[in-house]
């Protein structure tokens, strides 16, 4: 009886998260049943999975962008891609398994809507995918490449760092691949182990020429992705895979932009500044409330959003300059800002 109740509860929650036709998600490397709802596993406590705990906290409904709809992360990505392909006739989406909708359902329906010339599969070749994307972008078309998991981005590392990032610089602004955006599922998911859990943003964080963006929620994701696609620099957009289904909130249907290189102060505080991005923002939010409750510490929570070039000003505004170590002031600060 408890089994039936738990299963019913799980199914209802999935439906609430907008998971119609959820059986179809078992294409390719899909997600194991019920993996995002550790509390909904139907067997006894002895077998319950020990997933790192966090609760997604949806932001309040945005009023300034028109009508909104309840979307989870992958649906908000689909919406952003839909808006891009509608607005920009040169936009193309490609990657492994994107045609049928992608292993995380981010591109569902796009091939039917925009045709097989604009949404197509590539063979299994990450270096080829990114290199090919750079080529498309150099001619002026908008290239949206997908790397199936961030763990597989490394064969493409050379193309990103040596080709994409430096194209504008080495050609003296004659050519650029600014219309390239690389999207990739990112971060731990509980059962991903070595090769489906990695967070490689740090490897790219020291490479001038590219932008690395990581959203924390569906609303942020759509706005940031649209900004990345329209940005005149090659961008890497990492999508926290554990939030694909778990994070659902009201997202505007029409396109809108969230500026890059701008961190967001989610919670004001006076004692300690906590900086996080992606999934960890929700963990940090909980930590902040626990710190307030148990230690009486007032924490400022900042979502960095863009990893590189990062918003030094917002982060350092309240933070004690000496506790941060090296803090550019005066002329050095100006120079640092002008680097990007």
């Amino acid at each position, binding site marked *: 009886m408890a089994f039936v109740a738990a299963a019913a509860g799980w199914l209802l929650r999935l439906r609430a998260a907008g998971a119609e036709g959820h059986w179809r998600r078992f294409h390719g490397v899909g997600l194991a049943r019920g993996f995002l709802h550790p509390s909904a596993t139907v067997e006894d406590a002895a077998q319950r999975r020990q997933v790192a705990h966090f609760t997604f906290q949806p932001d309040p409904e945005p009023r300034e962008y028109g009508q909104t709809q309840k979307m989870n992360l992958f649906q908000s990505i689909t919406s952003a891609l839909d808006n891009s392909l509608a607005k920009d006739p040169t936009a193309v989406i490609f990657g492994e*398994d994107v045609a049928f909708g992608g292993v995380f359902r981010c591109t569902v329906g796009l091939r039917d809507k925009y045709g097989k010339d604009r949404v197509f599969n590539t*063979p299994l070749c990450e270096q080829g995918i990114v290199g090919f994307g750079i080529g498309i972008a150099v001619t002026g078309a908008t290239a949206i490449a997908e790397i199936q998991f961030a763990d597989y981005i490394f064969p493409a590392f050379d193309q990103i760092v040596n080709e994409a990032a430096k194209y504008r610089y080495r050609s003296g602004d004659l050519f650029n691949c600014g219309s390239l955006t690389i999207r990739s599922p990112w971060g731990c998911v509980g059962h991903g182990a070595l090769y489906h859990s990695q967070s490689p943003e740090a490897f790219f964080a020291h490479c001038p020429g590219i932008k690395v963006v990581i959203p924390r929620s569906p609303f942020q994701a759509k706005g940031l992705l649209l900004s990345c696609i329209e940005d005149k620099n090659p961008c890497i957009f990492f999508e926290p895979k554990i939030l694909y289904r778990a994070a659902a909130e009201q997202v505007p249907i029409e396109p809108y932009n969230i500026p890059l290189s701008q961190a967001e102060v989610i919670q004001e505080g006076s004692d300690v500044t906590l900086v996080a991005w992606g999934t960890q923002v929700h963990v940090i939010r909980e930590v902040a409330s626990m710190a307030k409750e148990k230690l009486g510490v007032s924490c400022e929570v900042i979502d960095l959003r863009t990893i590189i070039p990062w918003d030094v000003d917002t982060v350092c505004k309240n933070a004690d300059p000496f506790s941060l170590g090296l803090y550019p002031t005066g002329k050095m600060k100006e120079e640092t800002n002008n680097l990007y």
Partner: protein
Amino acid sequence: MRKMLAAVSRVLSGASQKPRHGFAMLPSLVSISRLKQSSQLGLPKCWDYSYSLKTRQASRVLVASRNFANDATFEIKKCDLHRLEEGPPVTTVLTREDGLKYYRMMQTVRRMELKADQLYKQKIIRGFCHLCDGQEACCVGLEAGINPTDHLITAYRAHGFTFTRGLSVREILAELTGRKGGCAKGKGGSMHMYAKNFYGGNGIVGAQVPLGAGIALACKYNGKDEVCLTLYGDGAANQGQIFEAYNMAALWKLPCIFICENNRYGMGTSVERAAASTDYYKRGDFIPGLRVDGMDILCVREATKFAAAYCRSGKGPILMELQTYRYHGHSMSDPGVSYRTREEIQEVRSKSDPIMLLKDRMVNSNLASVEELKEIDVEVRKEIEDAAQFATADPEPPLEELGYHIYSSDPPFEVRGANQWIKFKSVS
């Protein structure tokens, strides 16, 4: 021997028991007592079966007078060749002993994969699990064509190879369930199993092929006449590093056998939609290649022997494409029917199942009887059950071991965990 006769006479004089599965209980009882004896010595590795087989054979002569042939000659499919004048032979001799050994090994791999499927659905195995049932002829056939001192490296569909390269089923299942008794001490899981001369078990598609070329270089350097079998799939065949490995192997004449296990689908993408040329055996271009029927174990064995002889003679690398099929989906999250029809899977199962093909051959040429093979099935089932029992009951590795073997360092190196207050000792 005396014990055997005593057991037989006990059974003959004892109360009659209802026969199970429609055949006499007698031979099974004899075998089970033998199995109990050998299990006290530790579960036998796959090549020890020939010894117990011989003893059982002798005892069986007493209870059932049936003469089996010692060996039989079979015709096998001719391989398509690329840049080769001659290919492997089209006939081969299979001895009774070998036949029973291959049958047992294939059946063990099959049952082990099905047990892994069951355990995964019960959530005793977590994470990723890529099963190779349907491809048993590849792992057993390849092993039959090489020596234990040769080397093998493959991708993530590795459970079958882990077994044929010498690990026991209980070590494999315990690794799948993430327990201490697993071959990688419970820290590797499905995709990361290793054994002597078996280099895994690799998660990143195509990354193992340059590694295999490197192992082949070591073989050549050491001069011990060993070869390296480097396996990859039809999806991986489109990765750039494969071609880099081809070039290096051919340039330096490395004893590397590149083997493409073509099971027609790279995850969910059929070969026609992924590759400009689906003649994977020709993809090596300047490397000679052969296309082999991967569902026929004898074909695989002969082709492997041929390829190994080619490499050992110093002529350089060679490429083999094994045309095979997997019954399960890409992994346990994939039902496997959204990109192919159930009819197709059924057709392959009924017409080309490797175990069925071997069984039919052996029975029709009087190398073994149906009952004998059924008996092997029962024994294998029992072995898998025991292993699954062990795998479920064994304790997980202790938390201190989380940081072990990150670095090799004396004294143990301290590694930072998820935050600066969590420290793991990297003992190695």
